[in-house]
């Protein structure tokens, strides 16, 4: 059989094949409440509530403004959270007006909304880990067209509490000063913090780069010890406008719920996705719903960067 004829046969056959819309009956889908709240000590509890939507919906998320959100300490009612309507900088959310949570207490959140089953979740704020030392070393600078690229090593030492398991979210922020030169005088016009993000190429089972900056890790390998970590950070500035400021560190000691949710969320965000890639299952501690209600407690420190 000649090649053109064979090719024609194959083209004709393949043309009728390959793909078509699938009418999948995803019986599992049922709209639920999605609750998002990460809360720290001595700060109001903020809760965002939306509806989950089918994976095929493709519409903007729908946030709820008619929910009844209640906070409990154990079984003791504390407060009904107040709605803060949508603003240009934020979606609507609910917040405690008077109450601020404390370390070590177990809190329960209950949410009622018309048309939905009540959802609830519990969590507590863990004891913070104390930062015992923070240092910056090995500073190097590379001059690139219109920018200066800095690289430096940050070393942090902290004390891991002697509890069974502890989880952390470590954030680094680079302070950057804005300046102007007016008649040979340098005038500082303000400053801001740039969150440092890490590449997932450094991920492992105990430490992963959080998709929105910083790293998440657990104490599986060092429970109850003074622990030292070193990271090489890179940042760049436009030397005609900016000056490099200090490096700020926030070490969040986080609840297990916080760690599991943000770990899975981060892995899902950096996963290549697609039908041939294995999915990342998102942790969820909202009973009858989706999302996260989790406490954390931060410790802060900063270090100057000397060239």
């Amino acid at each position, binding site marked *: 059989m000649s090649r053109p004829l*064979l090719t024609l046969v*194959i083209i004709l056959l393949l043309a009728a094949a390959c793909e*078509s819309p699938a009418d999948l009956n995803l019986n599992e889908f049922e709209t639920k409440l999605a609750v998002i709240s990460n809360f720290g000590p001595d700060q109001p509890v903020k809760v965002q509530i939306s509806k*989950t939507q089918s994976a095929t919906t*493709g519409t903007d998320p729908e946030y709820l403004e008619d929910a009844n959100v209640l906070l409990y300490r154990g079984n003791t009612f504390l407060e009904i959270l107040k709605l803060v309507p949508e603003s240009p900088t934020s979606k609507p959310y609910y917040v405690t007006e008077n109450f601020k949570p404390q370390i070590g207490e177990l809190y329960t959140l209950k949410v009622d909304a018309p048309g939905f089953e009540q959802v609830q979740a519990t969590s507590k704020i863990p004891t913070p880990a104390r930062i015992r030392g923070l240092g910056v070393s090995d500073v190097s600078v590379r001059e690139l067209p219109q920018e200066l690229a800095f690289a430096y090593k940050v070393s942090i030492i902290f004390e891991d509490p002697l509890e069974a398991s502890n989880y952390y979210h470590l954030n680094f922020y680079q302070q950057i000063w804005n300046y102007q030169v007016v008649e040979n005088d340098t005038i500082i016009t303000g400053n801001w913090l740039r969150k440092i993000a890490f590449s*997932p190429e450094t*991920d492992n089972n105990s430490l992963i780069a959080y998709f929105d900056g910083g790293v998440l890790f657990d104490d599986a390998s060092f429970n109850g010890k003074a622990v030292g970590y070193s990271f090489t950070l890179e940042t760049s500035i436009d030397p005609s406008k900016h000056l490099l400021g200090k490096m700020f560190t926030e070490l969040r000691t986080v609840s297990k719920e916080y760690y599991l949710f943000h770990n899975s969320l981060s892995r899902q965000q950096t996963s290549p996705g697609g*039908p041939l890639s*294995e*999915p990342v299952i998102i942790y969820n501690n909202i009973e009858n719903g989706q999302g996260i209600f989790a406490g954390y407690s931060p410790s802060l420190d900063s270090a100057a960067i000397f060239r």
Partner: protein
Amino acid sequence: MKKSRGAILSLSLVFLSAVAVAQSALDVPVNLGVKEVSLEQALLKLIQDYDVRLSFSNNILPDIQISANFKKKPLRQVLDALLEDTDISYREIGNQIVLYQKERPDVERKFTISGFVEDADTGERLIAASVYDRRLGKGVETNEYGFFSLTLPQGDIQLSVNYLGYIPQEYNFKLNSDKRLQIELNASLLLPVVEIIAHDSIVSDLRSGHSSDYFNAEDIEQLPALGGEPDLIRATHLLPGVQTGTDGIGGIHVRGGNAEHNLILIDGVPVYNALHAAGLFSVFNTDAIRSAQLIKGGFSARYGGRLSSVLDVHTKEGNLNRLSGTAEIGLLTARASLEGPLIKEKSSFFVSARRSFLNWYTRPISEDEKAKQGIKGKTLYDFFDVNAKVNYEFSPKDKVYLSYYQGNDHFDNDGFSSDSFTYYSNRWEDTVRIRYDSWYGESLSWGNTVAAARWNHIFGNKLFANTTLTYSRFATNIYYGEVDSLVWSNRDTTLQRVYDFGRFRSSIEDVGGRMDFDWLLSPSQTIRFGWGLTEHQFNPGALTYNEIIEYIGPEDVQGNDPINSTESFAYLESNMVLGSKFALNIGVHAARLKVQEKTYNLLQPRLSAYWSVGERFGMKAAYGEMAQFLHLLSNSSIGLPTDLWVPATADVPPQQAWQASTGFDYDFKVLELSIEGYYKKMHNLLNYTEGAYFLNDWEENVTSGQGRAYGIEMLLRKSKGNTTGWMAYTLSWSDRRFELINLGERYPFKYDRRHDLKIVLQHAFSKWMRVSASWIVSSGFAVSLPIAEYYYEKPNGNSVPVIDYGSKNQFRMPYYHRLDISANFNFKTRSFWHDVNIGFYNLYNRKNPLYYDLRTNFINENGELKEKKEYVQVWLLPILPSVNYAIKF
């Protein structure tokens, strides 16, 4: 020449008196030159030529053929040589030399019949041929090299030799001494029926408790095939307990095991990737296959290193008697083989090659598709295999084999596009024409190389030894590149050029040796033992890449360091028949791995039993523990050549499993029924942590877990007559549990197909025409699909979607079903055989989904651009006709 038996023949002849007085008759020098005469004739020649006073009863003489050439040797020495290996001795009494039968011990005297069973036409040795004595009903099977040894009581023997597809041979003789036989069987003119279990039911003693199925090349060629390409792995898909993905994608999964849990051997050497085109074809060229055996459970102790199954493939040795060959062409591949003697009856060769010509189709189709998108480029895919083997028989007890296999796949994809735009530049006060050029290219190649040198030696009549040196390598190479450039066309100046080049390499390389011994003590007991050692070198993937803007810098390397390990093993197993009804295989496989200063020692007991309750009814049971020092890490939901083979290390323990099974066989005469239940538990399975970045250090991004599988398999088959076939049904469950997958919860294994039914039917209309059909219907495999989503708002106010998949693999694909048919015609012209095969794969064009993809489209709704998501079902193979033509001489 036969004399009357039972009479005493006394022959007394007179020596010359001088000689008689001077020395003993046994010291007289004699000449004897005979070729293939009976012992009696040889003795008579001595009497006639030298007047030797020999006295014997021809009743006691064994029926053996003598060839001898003695010159001036003392008679004593000649008699010793002639009577060697017999139970006859001699004594000088006066002037006479009296031959007599040695004193019989109280126990029954036994002798050993040993030798090889061969194809009369080609000289190929036949595996698993049954050799048994009809009189006593005792027998054995030939081993992997066609050798048998059968020890039986002295007396009349009715030796029957059977092999599927061959005309049975029968030998009647009196067994008075050890006997060596070279048995040649002639192939039946009518092609054999497809018999997936080749045991001869008469030799019920030989059955064992393990679950195994035999194939030979003819079996496979009779089955309907994809593209008309007969395929061993695809043939295994038709057996109970064997699962695969859509159209074979993803390899085989035996009794709930992973793809890497199958020990796939070519002439005793492991092959790491047995698939071409992700599973559409296997690496086995049917031309090269002599026989294959799939063992699903209750492994004998001689097998080790995998958890779920053994696919033991033996390639052809080469025709010892004449030159022969085949050439075959189909729609997708072409193949040819040649075999023949190098030294007649001593040495032969076999060589075969196969090449796909998928490029014929992929190139024009891809060029057209890319052209529609404004891209100049192509997509190519091809594969080839080469098998070669030579053997040399140094002596009836020594044979050497050299075998080689190489198979490679190659995929290329590239494209070039160019676009331009023009604008007016105030700075240059001119029209600026900018051209944007973009080129990309990918190349992926992978392949196996396998080589073995083997020496068979027979010690005495009962001990068969096989010494093997092995080499196996599987390697994957990926190259990719991308160049984007902005060119100021007016001035022919490149404004910016960005290069991104990378290559990924991974490989596993083994060098090893092993010695195996079959000690055939008696028909009721065979002992096998052996040992071996393999050095593994793993290069589990390293990416070298350049990402360059305007200048070329040094290459960055990311990936894993090579790991070396040493694996050794020893085993001992005994096959016993207790009484006449109970067969037992008991053994132990001891394995050791030395890696990274850590040593793992694992003892794996194996036991299988078969009880012939009645003439037609038998029960079986097996238990085995298995260990595997290798893991396969897959970075996709289907098996791809980019999957990484990695070893157990100091931190990653070996995989282990145990399996228990029990069942029964019943022979309805026309139909045979086999039902078997199994339970398998697997530990220390390894997988990438959910969401792991697969180029990172694999050891720090994997999670250990466990799996379990259980089910019932049923096989009803008809293997005699013009219409043959089988029906296989499996009801099974299989799941997994990993600490860092699915939040630590148990989930269904992807190939957890609850129901699996396979029906194969064949009908021989005549000697030259045969039609076959196979129909498969299976529960859909388990997958994860996005069910819902919500949004997580980051502190900066931006939101990211959170996809809810529910629990892992909670969704089921629809039932998979497919009907394949084929018709075989064969005829002979002069000295050529012609085979024509016409068939249809997926006859009723069932669109069995390979996967579902959630696609996002944008639609115009009342002048507003809106996002629309929908699931798309992607399937692979529609109805595919096939035409194959083969010529054989």
